[in-house]
């Protein structure tokens, strides 16, 4: 059977609807809930998402060894920040730092800044800690802490990989311009986040 006609497609679509799914009445609890809660946290927060993708893009712009050093370092420092958030260590202005990370990392991408690797690591490390702290502090009380951390570490890694894939477009002149423009837009969004926080204050 080849799926070229409409009928088999309709049948398959109906089959998808008929497949029984678990009821998420108490979403966020248990290992599965904790994992999906943690996994979706970086994906559903535009500030986290843009910062993580920007790290990957910036790594690709910097080339080896930054292309792998930055995405490998980020989860490690983020985990330390996440642990600090979960145990209740205060980090004043976390949201401001995260908004700043979007501006700085987006700006680095926009300028295709070729910083020294150590300096790049310091910048990424500071922001990784703040992002991890926010993930940890915002963990739902009912979620399995370990599963939550596994989820957000994997999601973060996947966002870095996405950033690296986007960053590879710089091989072409049009792609280079497009990537830099994306960085600029991310930085602008970061400015909006800062403004939002300032107005809230």
């Amino acid at each position, binding site marked *: *059977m*080849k*799926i070229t006609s409409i009928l*088999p497609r309709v049948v*398959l679509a109906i*089959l*998808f609807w008929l*497949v*029984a*799914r*678990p009821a998420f009445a108490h979403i966020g609890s248990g*290992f*599965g809930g904790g994992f999906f809660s943690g996994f979706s946290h970086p994906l559903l927060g535009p500030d986290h998402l843009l910062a993580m993708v920007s790290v990957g893009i910036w790594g690709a712009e910097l080339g080896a060894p930054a*292309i*792998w050093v930055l*995405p*490998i*370092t980020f*989860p*490690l420092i*983020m*985990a*330390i920040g*996440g*642990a600090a958030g*979960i*145990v*209740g260590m205060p980090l004043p202005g976390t949201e401001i730092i995260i908004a700043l990370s979007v501006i700085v990392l987006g700006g680095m991408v926009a300028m295709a800044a070729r910083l020294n690797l150590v300096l790049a690591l310091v910048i990424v490390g500071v922001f990784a800690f703040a992002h991890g702290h926010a993930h940890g502090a915002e*963990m739902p*009380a009912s*979620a399995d*802490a*370990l599963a939550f*951390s*596994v989820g957000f*570490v*994997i999601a973060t*890694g996947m966002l*870095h*990989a996405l950033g690296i894939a986007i960053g590879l477009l710089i091989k072409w002149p049009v792609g280079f311009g497009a990537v830099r423009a994306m960085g600029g837009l991310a930085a602008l969004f970061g400015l909006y986040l800062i403004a939002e926080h300032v107005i809230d204050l």
Partner: protein
Amino acid sequence: MSLRLLIVLVILSCLAPSGADAHMVWAGGGAFWAGFLHPLTSLDEVCFLVALSIWSTFNEPSTRVWVLGTIGAVTTVAAVILWWSGQELSTIPAMATLMIVTGLGGATRLKVQSAILVPLAAIGAWFIGSETGQAVGGLSPIGFIVGASLSPTMLFLYLLMGLERLNSDWQSIASRAVASWIAAIGIMMLTFELARHRLPMQLH
């Protein structure tokens, strides 16, 4: 059957509801199968073995053989000792620490002698075996322990075989990234364990 239809059917079968096999000892297939599943359904043990295999790939082939043999032998010995003594041993802090060490070793592609990697594998295998020995319950100890010693050894072997085929730079970077994720998860595991008494509601 066309390839597209096959893919759709596979996806559909993945969506079908099934039982949650969250680190349970399922005795339906006998003691051997229950033991075989035991390490494979333990996140810390699987993560440790994945990180160890990644790190081992970056080291000498002779070292990998020694590590493989050590895992099988020490897991069995530890399982027998813990089952026979009936002692209870908390393995989480040790496994989390091992995840950090092996994860960092794999992520940094650290070249080490077998005198370092083999004892590290032995310590990890000891704790994997310890968890096995404590989980025998009312099942046949021989079948359970043989199954639980075989599965980590096989997992390590298959991972090695798979990783050795990853020759490109990108694949090497991907495996190092996975090792760094394991180290990151280990950091959080260790923190949770150390803070367990402080945040009982969140950590259980």
